[in-house]
């Protein structure tokens, strides 16, 4: 049963309450233990810290991409004056606010720059004309300065969105919506610039010789997939716990499913666009990056992306009946999250193999699992902390009634 009047929301459980407290407590504890264990494994093994930083980067980017997707789509809801999404917008705002947590979790990467980025080695740059040419951009000081700018923009926007929206919960002032719309318009421009360059800095510069102008779009496509998969699963989970049971309806799931489906295709479109140009040109300086992913053991990861990140979910999510079925949508949401993790792994880990010459199976082990659990726990705890004392729905948004009665024609 859907609701027809925002006043009916008063009977709805729309806060995390006790659940939030336990998620913060246990998630935080599990998170810290996971990360400490992963780091300890790095200490014990020979050259394990190099491996640890690559594993850390993979999981850092995975969770960051969810928040960045959420930040972007919160802004897009404002500039498009979207009505349908109001009931899920607060959840996006909360996910986006987790960039604050990601900024803290960026600090260990600063200590791992030497393990991760070949261009930080002065002796390597001295013998490498390409790296010398790129040095005005790829140097540690400017790299860190840019990271500060990126996080400043993301945190500024995310907290502005969350604070203003929460403020509207009290006042119901429609002018807040107009202000959010205005800030989003230039905020999205800043978002696009910072996200593109962040993906260049943190991921693409793992191989400083290689370049791809579409890389930022590729990263964005992945973030959008990550967001809509997370959001669908989160909504279903919250409803299972007895929250927002009537506010979020099949119609909203249908739209989340459509977005998940659309961005799965968009991701494949961008991935192929990038691949085809390098395949056609076949120039030595750009094919190396592809070759590392086209030979065993990474070949299997690449093939799994083609089939499990595109073909299977394409047919899996094609039908409206699947998007409107909570259990099936939940299945595909989790599936896409797993594949998005594989996608980030595919971007990062072949460079580890390349730099440190590990051959044999694709590197994956207990350290990856500890690290993933660690980040997952902290991310959930961060989400619960932002949700503390806040309604999970923008209670007095001028478009709330529209969203509650929304139907796909």
């Amino acid at each position, binding site marked *: 049963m859907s609701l027809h009047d925002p006043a009916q929301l008063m009977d709805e459980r729309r806060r995390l309450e006790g659940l939030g407290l336990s998620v913060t407590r246990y998630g935080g504890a599990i998170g810290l233990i996971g990360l400490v264990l992963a780091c300890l494994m790095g200490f014990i093994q020979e050259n394990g810290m190099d491996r640890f930083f690559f594993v850390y980067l993979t999981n850092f980017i995975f969770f960051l991409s969810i928040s960045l997707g959420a930040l972007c789509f919160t802004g897009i809801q404002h500039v498009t004056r979207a009505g349908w999404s109001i009931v899920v917008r607060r959840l996006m705002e909360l996910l986006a606010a987790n960039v604050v947590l990601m900024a803290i979790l960026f600090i260990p990467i600063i200590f791992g720059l030497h393990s991760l980025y070949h261009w930080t080695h002065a002796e390597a740059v001295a013998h490498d004309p390409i790296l010398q040419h790129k040095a005005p951009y790829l140097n540690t000081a400017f790299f860190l300065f840019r990271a500060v700018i990126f996080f400043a923009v993301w945190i500024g926007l995310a907290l502005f969105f969350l604070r203003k929206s929460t403020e509207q919960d009290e006042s119901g002032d429609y002018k807040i919506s107009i202000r959010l719309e205005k800030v989003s318009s230039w905020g999205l421009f800043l978002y696009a610039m910072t996200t593109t360059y962040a993906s260049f800095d943190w991921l693409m510069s793992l191989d400083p010789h290689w370049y791809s102008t579409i890389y930022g779009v590729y990263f964005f496509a992945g973030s959008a997939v990550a967001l809509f998969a997370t959001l669908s699963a989160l909504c279903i989970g919250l409803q299972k716990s007895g929250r927002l049971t009537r506010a979020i309806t099949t119609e909203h799931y249908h739209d989340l499913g459509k977005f998940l489906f659309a961005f799965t295709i968009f991701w494949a*479109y961008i991935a*192929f666009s990038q691949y*085809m140009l390098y395949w*056609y040109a*076949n120039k030595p300086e750009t094919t190396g990056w592809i070759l590392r992913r086209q030979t065993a053991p990474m070949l299997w990861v690449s093939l799994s992306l083609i089939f499990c990140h595109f073909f299977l979910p394409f047919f899996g999510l*094609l*039908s409206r009946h699947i998007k409107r079925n909570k259990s099936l949508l939940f299945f595909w949401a989790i599936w896409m999250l797993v594949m998005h993790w594989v996608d980030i792994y595919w971007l990062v880990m072949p460079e580890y193999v390349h730099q440190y010459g590990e051959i044999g199976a694709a590197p994956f082990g207990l350290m990856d699992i500890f690290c993933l659990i660690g980040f997952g726990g902290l991310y959930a705890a961060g989400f619960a902390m932002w949700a503390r004392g806040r309604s999970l729905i923008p209670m007095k948004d001028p478009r709330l009634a529209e969203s509650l009665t929304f*139907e796909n*024609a």
Partner: protein
Amino acid sequence: MSETNKQLYGYLVEFDNVDGLVNAAEKVRDAGYSDWDCHSPFPIHGMDDAMGIKPTVIPWIVLCAGITGCTAALAMQWWMNAIDYPTIISGKPFFSLPANIPIIFELTVLFSALTAVGSLFALNGLPQLYHPLFTVEKFARATDDRFFLVIEASDPRFDLEKTRQLLESCNGLSVEKVED
């Protein structure tokens, strides 16, 4: 035109609000009629349910068209590049999948889109330049501020008296015969 040439098309009932039309549609649906329709100036949420309309087959037709476009594009490029006129292009094999994917994508989309529009027209019997309801002057307000429900005389359950009674029980503004 003389009176005798006219044929009964059906009964038309007029409403000035959405709820009236939706309630009437539910009544007519439950009475088991099959040849009837509703006309409103804008789409009404829940109308499909109220009229008991089954899901359309268009998605399946479009899926078949998409698969046809996909295989046609692949077959065409294979035949042209590898069989009919083999040419070496930037040192690639005659038949190389990556080069074919953009055309495969385009033809899949083209076939699907044209089939979607085409089957929509065909299944709705469009284009239709004349309709018996055009003889009713006030029916013009179906594109403005009035809501209409019509039961056609071709319906097997159509009965001059019973159908009229059913429509009168819907509390519309008026019930009238449409002749063509």
